[in-house]
């Protein structure tokens, strides 16, 4: 851990671009969409300045961006692309293709609300709507986590052969500048060796066929293999996160980052940048005598069931902050958390707060108000309602 980090003040998007450069990615498929565009702009700048040796494919749609990335990854190259909202939705078909072909692609998705009405601001529904595509999902809280997340994701993905989506918040991270500690290239190279593909299309003496039709007799087994890979990925994620911590001083060995959970009455649980606000609010609330904790879900897929159970066992309540919504049901993280806890014996009060949809500001006073509400409910011992549209103009 005795290395000298390179400190740079960069936006979340630039942090992602630097990580792509440092990971020695070989092929990048680029298609612009707000607020992702500055990632591919920065990568193009690296190429233009001779700082990175990357094959840059300026495709004609996000669907083709993912298709080209899949082609490149299947051929054996380390491949990258980035997108947001509508672009991610357009990619949907190819997301299945990437995971089904077991390609370790890493993609950055900048969380943006789905239209209509048009919105370019932060909202997690776009990435969470892709949860069943077989991709792993890493949610970054700040620019540093975007950088670290991309580097770690390549290492994890290439071990389990499952693609990973690194998710950051529109504008809140993507366009906001912050200090990011970058790792010198030679140390990244030590951490992340060149890719050893599961298969390649370049062995011409032993040709293969990838992704052919599978009859009902075989399809089922392939799905099971992918499910098993996700299950195994949990250990790999923890191992790689620990190794990252040992090498570079920032530990990612837990899939849920926690703080003040041990003696807390209740915890806030959420994903992405809004947990940065919560982190600050928790410190303030603690100084005011509230017994609150903090649980940030870093990896949404594979879902850290076991870690969640541990947290749930020690607290009386969980306030889930969902910057997303599954229509006809409830917040997606809330839904997942309840499902994961069913039958485990850990039954804290869980309430779902729908916050910040479409980039609605979510600030420290909001966290305080939610803490107030949660405290009241725990004292009462029961919920008034499960889902609270917190910001709604009433």
């Amino acid at each position: 851990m005795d290395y000298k980090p390179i400190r740079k003040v960069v936006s979340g998007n630039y942090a992602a671009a630097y990580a792509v450069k440092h990971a020695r990615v070989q092929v990048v498929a680029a298609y612009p969409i707000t607020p992702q565009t500055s990632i591919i702009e920065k990568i193009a700048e690296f190429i233009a300045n001779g700082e990175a040796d990357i094959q840059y494919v300026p495709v004609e749609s996000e669907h083709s961006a993912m298709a080209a990335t899949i082609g490149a990854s299947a051929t054996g190259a380390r491949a990258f692309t980035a997108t947001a909202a509508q672009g991610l939705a357009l990619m949907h078909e190819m997301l299945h293709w990437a995971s089904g072909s077991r390609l370790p692609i890493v993609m950055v998705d900048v969380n943006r609300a789905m239209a209509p009405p048009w919105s370019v601001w932060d909202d997690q529904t776009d990435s969470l709507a892709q949860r069943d595509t077989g991709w792993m999902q890493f949610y970054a809280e700040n620019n540093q986590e975007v950088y670290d997340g991309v580097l770690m994701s390549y290492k994890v993905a290439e071990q389990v052969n499952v693609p990973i989506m690194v998710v950051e918040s529109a504008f809140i991270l993507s366009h906001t500048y912050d200090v990011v500690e970058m790792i010198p290239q030679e140390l990244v190279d030590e951490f992340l060796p060149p890719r050893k593909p599961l298969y390649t299309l370049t062995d011409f003496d032993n040709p293969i066929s990838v992704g052919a039709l599978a009859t009902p007799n075989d399809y089922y087994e392939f799905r099971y293999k992918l499910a098993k890979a996700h299950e195994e990925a949990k250990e790999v994620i923890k191992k790689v996160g620990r190794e990252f911590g040992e090498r570079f001083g920032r530990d990612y060995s837990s899939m849920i980052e926690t703080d003040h959970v041990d003696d807390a009455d209740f915890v806030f649980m959420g994903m992405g940048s809004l947990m940065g606000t919560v982190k600050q609010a928790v410190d303030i609330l603690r100084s005011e005598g509230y017994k609150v904790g903090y649980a940030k879900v870093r990896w949404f897929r594979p879902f850290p069931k076991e870690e969640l159970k541990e947290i749930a066992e020690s607290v009386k309540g969980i306030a889930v902050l969902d910057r997303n919504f599954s229509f006809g049901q409830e917040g997606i993280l809330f839904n997942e958390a309840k499902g994961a806890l069913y039958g485990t014996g850990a039954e804290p009060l869980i309430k779902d707060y729908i916050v910040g949809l479409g980039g609605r500001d979510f600030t420290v006073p909001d966290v305080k108000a939610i803490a107030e509400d949660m405290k009241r409910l725990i004292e009462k011992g029961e919920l008034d309602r499960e889902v609270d549209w917190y910001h709604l103009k009433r």
Partner: protein
Amino acid sequence: MAESPFKADIERVGKEYSEKMTPGAIATIPGSSVINKTGSWRVFMPEFNRDKCVRCYLCYIYCPEPAIYLDEENFPVFDYDYCKGCGICANECPTDAIIMVRESK
């Protein structure tokens, strides 16, 4: 008559695929479709008259399977394991050395 060129492949495919499951639906043996004997699709079968054949190989060129190969004397041979009986060879043969006859099973 010469042996089918696919015979060795069939044995290889059978052996290698006995209990093999690869992630990502990868078929690792090229040309392994030879295990699938499509000759059973046939209704009409090509009948070959060696005396009329001028060895122009048009039948060989146009066979979509391909199920026509050459014997020691370089005359075409029909691999009835795979021939689906489409009749292109008979239609293209300039000397009518191939005729399609109803197959009795």
